[in-house]
């Protein structure tokens, strides 16, 4: 960026014609060198692994020895062979259910927290810190804490439910309750979305709110007629990124279901066997890296389709 400017300043008009072609090449070189670190990072850690994974998805590979080419067999087997991959479709269904529950819950929780933070005058910094803490807490600690909270005998959640007369549940060991329980943790960890919503709220001009008040709009109307429509671009962004993240959920289920020396097989009756956990098991436990790569590309295509549909059908402009 700086080099051309430098050249115009320092190069005399007489020498320009003669020196220019070589100098331009050198300018290009400088430019490339300046972006080299970022480019090297992209190529070495993103592009090369992704292209390798694409190649390996067409092979039978156990990670240790030479891969053998099998064409589309991995893709076909994953989709249609329930002997080789008995839980593939189960993992798809678990992940879709999780996404459908966790994403809206996270958005509602983040927006509610942001509205509260935006409303208070004193101590906003403290509360923002407290609400953000779950995001920066180590995943393993989060898993341990929530296993405790959900404990069927001593768990705080069952104790609280007991106070209002609801019988305690065996949360993480009842297949029907696993997804809601996991989604609730995700909603608790919504700090990043909360911060983005807060920024969105700060961006709504005070004059619009004032105009609404003068027109006689109550708080409820102001939220639904002014705040919420003005936040639409923020909501759209959080929806798209939230769905992508939810479709790839892994760390949470891994730490929740790997306690007590149990091998991670996805919770009771595979009810917590998310797509990426299933992929991980094939990659690193069952020695089927080729199939795992194919799974990752099926997921990639699926995410691209879902995202394109959201861009097509969800309103994203502020109104």
């Amino acid at each position, binding site marked *: 960026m700086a080099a051309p400017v430098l050249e115009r300043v320092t190069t005399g008009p007489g020498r320009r014609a003669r020196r220019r072609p070589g100098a331009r090449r050198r300018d290009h070189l400088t430019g490339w060198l*300046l972006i080299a670190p970022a480019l090297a990072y992209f190529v070495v850690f993103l592009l090369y692994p992704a292209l390798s994974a694409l190649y390996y998805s067409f092979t039978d590979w156990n990670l240790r020895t030479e891969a053998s080419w099998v064409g589309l067999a991995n893709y076909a087997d994953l989709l249609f062979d329930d*002997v080789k991959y*008995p839980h593939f479709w189960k993992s798809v269904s678990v992940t879709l259910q999780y996404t459908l529950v966790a994403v809206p819950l996270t958005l509602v929780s983040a927006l509610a927290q942001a509205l509260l933070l935006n409303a208070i005058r004193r101590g906003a910094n403290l509360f923002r810190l407290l609400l953000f803490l779950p995001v920066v807490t180590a995943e393993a600690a989060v898993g341990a804490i929530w296993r405790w909270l959900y*404990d069927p005998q001593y768990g705080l959640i069952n104790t609280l439910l007991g106070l209002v007369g609801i019988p305690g549940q065996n949360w993480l060991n009842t297949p029907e309750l696993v997804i809601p329980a996991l989604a609730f943790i995700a909603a608790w960890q919504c700090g990043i979305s909360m911060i983005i919503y807060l920024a969105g709220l700060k961006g709504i001009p005070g004059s619009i709110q004032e105009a609404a008040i003068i027109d006689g709009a109550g708080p409820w109307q102001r939220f639904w007629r002014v705040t919420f429509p003005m936040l639409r671009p923020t909501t759209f962004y959080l929806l798209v990124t939230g769905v992508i993240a939810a479709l790839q959920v892994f760390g949470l289920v891994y730490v929740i279901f790997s306690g007590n*020396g149990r091998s991670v097989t996805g919770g009771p009756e595979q009810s917590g066997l998310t797509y990426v956990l299933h992929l991980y098991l094939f990659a690193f436990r069952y020695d089927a890296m080729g199939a795992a790569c194919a799974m990752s590309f099926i997921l990639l295509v699926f995410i691209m389709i879902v995202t394109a549909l959201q861009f097509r059908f969800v309103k994203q402009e502020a109104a």
Partner: protein
Amino acid sequence: MSRGLVRGAVVAALVSGLAACGGGGTGGQSGGKELTFWMYQDRTPQAGQVMEKVREDFEKANPGVTVKLVKIPKDDYNTKLGSAVASKSAPDAGILDQPLVSKYALDGTIKEVPAGLIQEADYYKGALDTNRAGGKLYGLPQDQTTVALFYNKKLVPNPPKTWDELKQVAAQVHAADANVAGMNVPKGDGYGAWMFPGIVHGAGGEMVDDAGKKVLFDQPPAVEALQLWVDLQKSSPRKITDSDKPFENGLAAMTISGPWDVPTIREQFPDLDFGVAPLPYKTEPAGNIGGEDSVVFSTSKNPDLAWKWLAFLSDAANNGAVADAFGGFPVHLKAQVVAGGPEQAAFLEQLKVAHARPAVPQWIQVNDEIIAPAIESALTGKATAQQALSDAAAKTRSLLGWNG
């Protein structure tokens, strides 16, 4: 400042930065021979001291040799090792989980034990056999272990010996206090499926006949074993046993676990008065075998030295302490068992009748994806034990391509 100088400085800075990024892979070249050995992270500080002493003894006996012990958390170990082997950066030697030995041997990523390294008759046959693939020996065992019945002495004065006694004791405990489960019955997860074969052997059965390529876990002994767990749940509601550490907290009177749990329980729950007894059986005493094997990787530059180290760890003089450090019992017949607590006798008795797991390369997948869900469907009452296991056996036959 001239333009050329600025450019030169930028280029130099970038190049040196990139060089620094790429320079991490080499190094560690010392004058003598260095041997890298991968193992699980120490279970206790004492275990670390034992390994340190054995390492020093080996270095003293082999001047000029340094042994580097690389300790990796057990949960990450297989993943890290697989990646290292794939990228041709495997260590000289390392611990290898028993079911992985045959897989690595098939791949050619580990070396065969050289003739004359050890006298096979010096080792426990069962432990040594976990290192065989296709009749050849690919590693040396370092320790062996097994699971047995842990019982709370306050709730269970006399440990049950048979299945009938087990059911009876569990029922009595739960009848006496409805908040206490008779037994922490294993679940239909990978861990439960791993324990299951020991129960099947106790009824005189087997999971598979791998030589004859026959699936046998739909036969009566396995069905009876699963039915035992189903029956035990009547006196052991999951609402109690799914709680955190139910046995340790006194909420389950019995559980199945291994010697590795004993020091942890003693340390964290000093008030728990518990004993260990061999697993109850139906027709014959039986159990599982587990433990650590050790292998030399094909990429090792000093394979002879690596084998020498592995043989050193497992010889009569060292294996008693080494096996104890790994959390198991010696594999060398003449090695001194480190005197342990009163529970040791039960584990040693159990080891005499322990059976190795099936030597099927895909066994982990069968264990996790087929047997575990089958156990769970019987335990939750969605299928009978016979239905669940017949279904699982059919799936296993299809997956493995077996007819029997």
